[in-house]
């Protein structure tokens, strides 16, 4: 075997030549492999890799869109965007870190907390991702940094936008406020816009429900960056598309006036255009300042808001529910007329009404009263007697037709719609039969019935105009409202009674409008908070046990145009607390100077306007230890 394989030099030369050809072939094969692989990457996968190269090269910075404005029915701004000066640091361009931060702290009067935060964020920062030094700066401090820029490489002063509500606390409940996106909201959609610095979304009120319309389209700034994050140059920038403005039916001057006029009280004012259903005013005070939320609320301020027994976080116009008290008497009157009761039929009031062995009290001894005088004097006896005659199941549908217990399709995050009781409702809810004493309580607006100030204003608007108006907050062309099912004669009786309340010998004569040719009609109401103990009658004692004061009204009496409700929590009486406010608010519609004079005199006694009082309150509140605020104030 081995002998046969003896090789000679010639054989080896031959082997060499053969194997050289083989080696050449292998080389060519490997060359072709590389060529094929390269072609595959560069031709078949070209698009994929081009995209990857582009996403390597280009860094996209989102420009948050400017939020759409809120304007009132005359185009006056309610919520706008204020130029917001901020200073950021681009970590990649920073040269002398400690020195720069020290200079900035001096120029911007930063707290040690802020300086610590900046150092911490700079340590974790990614090259070109800006670190915020300060936002919401005034122009002077912003300019102080701007002029020093040549000495501060890496510092970039920027102009952004933040939400601004010129009316401050007056529009807090109406408009809501904006804030940074919460972690859950980001988890839901994962849009990178949501976590862009400076981007805010609506957190409450109309800001929240109209978010889609207000948000707008973000712009994008494209920059070419190296692998280490160094910016080479700016590429094309796409500007943001601002959100669409929203025009409300609100008359912002009237609204602001109403909010100021509420003064130290806890309550609400709702004013309607009673011919169209446009909401002219929906003030609820006290309220937080939405500007505070927009900038990020402080811990002390948050604690102050939450600790207040006047509940500044609650929109009382829509979410406050109260027994309507005597303001419901016109409703009962309409029901009685429908059941055929003659408005001139009299009932003798001897200070009460006996049902079985129980006496239901009236507030006075009114003698013989017909329907008009019963409304004027707010005589309970008349309504006890007549209400018992027709039964409450005949009154409840009238109340519902006038808006009580109803929910309206409005873009507010929540409305509470209360209760209009009847026998079926009581059976359903308590499994009990409706009793005559239930009727007597309900007919004067006590007992089971509760309504929101907003519903009371709808009721006033519908009675005054005779139209089935639908409340609306967004200004737009609408079909004319249909008339109510009541004949004009019936409505006129009730309106007459309401006119006498203010302009006759009624309960609110002191709140008569001091205007020529324009008169107001209304109805007072006083709602018990708890069962009356002894002779106290809810007119004194602790604030939270005092009676609520209510007033519904419309003007002018001759041709009703405006309807309103005023509800003052624990105001002790409609005539005393609510009617004077309604008088001033309606006066403002016709004679601003007179209304303002009245308000300024009052504000002098209260310690200034809303903003001044809140600032003073905040100042006294400070110094007390405060708990940290939760991240989302709506929780």
């Amino acid at each position, binding site marked *: 075997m081995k002998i046969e394989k003896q090789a000679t030099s010639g054989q080896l030369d031959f082997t060499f030549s053969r194997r050289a050809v083989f080696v050449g072939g292998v080389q060519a094969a490997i060359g072709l492999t590389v060529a094929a692989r390269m072609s595959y990457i*560069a031709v078949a996968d070209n698009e994929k890799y081009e995209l990857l*190269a582009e996403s390597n090269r280009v860094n996209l910075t989102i420009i948050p869109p400017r939020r759409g404005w809120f304007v009132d029915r005359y185009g006056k701004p309610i919520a706008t965007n204020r130029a917001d000066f901020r200073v950021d640091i681009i970590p990649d361009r920073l040269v002398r870190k400690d020195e720069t931060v020290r200079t900035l702290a001096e120029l911007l009067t930063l707290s040690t907390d802020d300086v610590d935060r900046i150092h911490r964020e700079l340590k974790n920062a990614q090259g070109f991702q800006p670190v915020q030094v300060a936002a919401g700066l005034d122009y002077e401090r912003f300019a102080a940094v701007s002029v020093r820029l040549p000495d501060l490489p890496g510092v970039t002063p920027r102009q952004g936008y933040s939400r601004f509500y010129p009316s401050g606390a007056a529009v807090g409940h109406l408009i809501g406020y904006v804030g940074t996106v919460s972690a859950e909201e980001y988890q839901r959609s994962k849009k990178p816009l949501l976590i862009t610095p400076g981007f805010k979304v609506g957190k409450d009120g109309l800001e929240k429900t109209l978010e889609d319309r207000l948000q707008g389209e973000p712009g994008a700034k494209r920059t070419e960056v190296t*692998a280490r994050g160094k910016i080479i140059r700016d590429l094309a920038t796409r500007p943001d598309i601002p959100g669409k403005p929203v025009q409300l039916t609100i008359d912002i001057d009237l609204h602001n006036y109403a909010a100021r006029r509420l003064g130290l009280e806890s309550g609400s004012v709702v004013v309607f255009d009673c011919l169209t259903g446009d909401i002219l005013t929906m003030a609820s005070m006290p309220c937080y300042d939405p500007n505070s939320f927009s900038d990020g609320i402080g811990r002390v301020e948050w604690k102050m808001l939450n600790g207040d027994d006047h509940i500044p976080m609650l929109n009382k116009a829509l979410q406050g529910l109260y027994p309507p008290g005597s303001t419901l008497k016109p409703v009962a009157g309409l029901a009685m007329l429908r059941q055929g009761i003659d408005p001139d039929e009299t009932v003798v009031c001897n200070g009460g009404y006996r049902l079985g062995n129980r006496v239901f009290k009236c507030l006075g001894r009114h003698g013989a009263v017909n329907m008009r005088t019963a409304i004027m004097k707010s005589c309970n006896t008349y309504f006890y007697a007549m209400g018992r005659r027709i039964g409450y199941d005949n009154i409840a549908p009238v109340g519902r037709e006038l808006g009580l217990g109803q929910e309206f399709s409005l873009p507010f995050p929540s409305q509470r719609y209360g209760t209009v009781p009847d026998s079926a409702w009581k059976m359903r809810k308590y499994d009990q039969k409706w009793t005559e004493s239930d009727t007597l309580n309900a007919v004067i607006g006590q007992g089971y019935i509760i309504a929101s100030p907003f519903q009371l204003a709808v009721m006033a608007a519908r009675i005054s105009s005779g139209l089935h108006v639908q409340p609306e907050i967004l200004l737009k062309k609408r079909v004319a409202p249909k008339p109510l099912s009541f004949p004009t004669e019936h409505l006129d009786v009730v309106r007459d009674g309401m006119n006498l309340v203010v302009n006759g010998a009624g309960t609110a004569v002191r709140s008569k409008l001091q205007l020529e040719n324009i008169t107001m009609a209304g109805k007072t109401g006083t709602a018990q908070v708890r069962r009356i103990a002894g002779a106290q009658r809810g007119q004194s004692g602790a604030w939270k046990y005092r009676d609520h004061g209510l007033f519904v009204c419309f003007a002018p009496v001759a041709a009703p145009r405006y309807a309103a409700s005023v509800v003052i929590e624990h105001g002790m009486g409609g005539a005393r607390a609510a009617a004077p406010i309604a008088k001033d608010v309606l006066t403002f519609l016709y004679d601003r100077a007179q209304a303002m004079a009245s308000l300024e005199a009052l504000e002098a006694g209260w310690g200034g306007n809303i903003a001044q009082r809140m600032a003073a309150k905040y100042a006294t509140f400070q110094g007390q230890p405060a708990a940290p605020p939760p991240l989302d104030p709506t929780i």
Partner: protein
Amino acid sequence: MNGIVPAPIAALPWRVIFILMALVGFGATVLYSAAGGHLEPWAGKHVLRFIALLVLAIAMSRMPQGFWKSITFPLYLLLLLLLVVVELMGFVGGGSQRWINLGFITLQPSELMKPAMVLAAAWFFDRLPPNRIYGIEAIWPLVLILILPSAMVIIQPDFDAAIAYAFGLGVVGFMAGLPLIYFIGAGAALAVVAPLVYFFGMKAYQQDRVLIFLNPENDPLGAGYHITQSKIAIGSGGIFGKGFGNGTQSYLDYLPEGHTDFVFATMAEEWGIVGGFFILFLYFMLMRWGLNVAVQSKTRYGKLVAAGLTCTIFFYIMINLLMVVGLAPVAGIPLPFVSHGGSSMLTMMLCVGIIMSIERHPGSKHGQFQ
């Protein structure tokens, strides 16, 4: 010899010089662009270095074949000694060191050993009587020649160099006519040993390289980054490339080592597969020239040296290109004549110089009596 060109110039091996000039010139163009349109720091040096080494190679081509044969063994021993010196210096200096700084040039003995290994193997087969080619006498000296320097570089640790030695030696042995069964057997053994080496012989970073090669997307920001970015550069270049000076991957530093190991990706981004095919064509011409010289040589030593050195150059090309297109693990091996870097250029030009010498002196049928 038509009188216009002086005879000594006309006698130069112009074919290979043109091929090299094209490669180096194209490489310099790519390096110029990678530096953002500047000769500094790479392109200018690249060309100057090539010119100096080309002069050296031409000088080497004047040496007769016998000269190379006579210095082969002393050269091998000298480099082995230098490897030991480097290892000791590294030991004293407290770290792995691969080069000796002579002041005007840094010598990397493990690099120079690659052509020396081919010379040594050819020298050995030249001395081996043809009828002993099947015996054990043909094997153990080869193993010895391989083991000694390999052991020195493996403790550095530099696996890439050890593999290059084995490759050079294997090619020479194959061309010399060793029985095919050896190579088939070695291939089978490798299949068995490779996993063992992977698990017990490699350091963690070397294991990573292999793993990441198998699946680069697993670690896009770590060690897989090189391969991913290289593929992005080649893939985004398309057929005609983005144009000279428009490569963003290298210009914006996304492609690491864009001027050395991954210069092919830098090129492909700007010149597309057209540029890639051009380089492949030039390499094809270079390989054809080298193997032709080997076949034309009359002596066994000349044949084996020319073929072995050609394959050494090929080894660099193959490993680098397969790595850059994502078909081989990341290894620190530059692309001959295109990548920036002195050590590899020196090795390549030494190889070329010796092949040129063999082209010029093909020798007679019985070379040892020339």
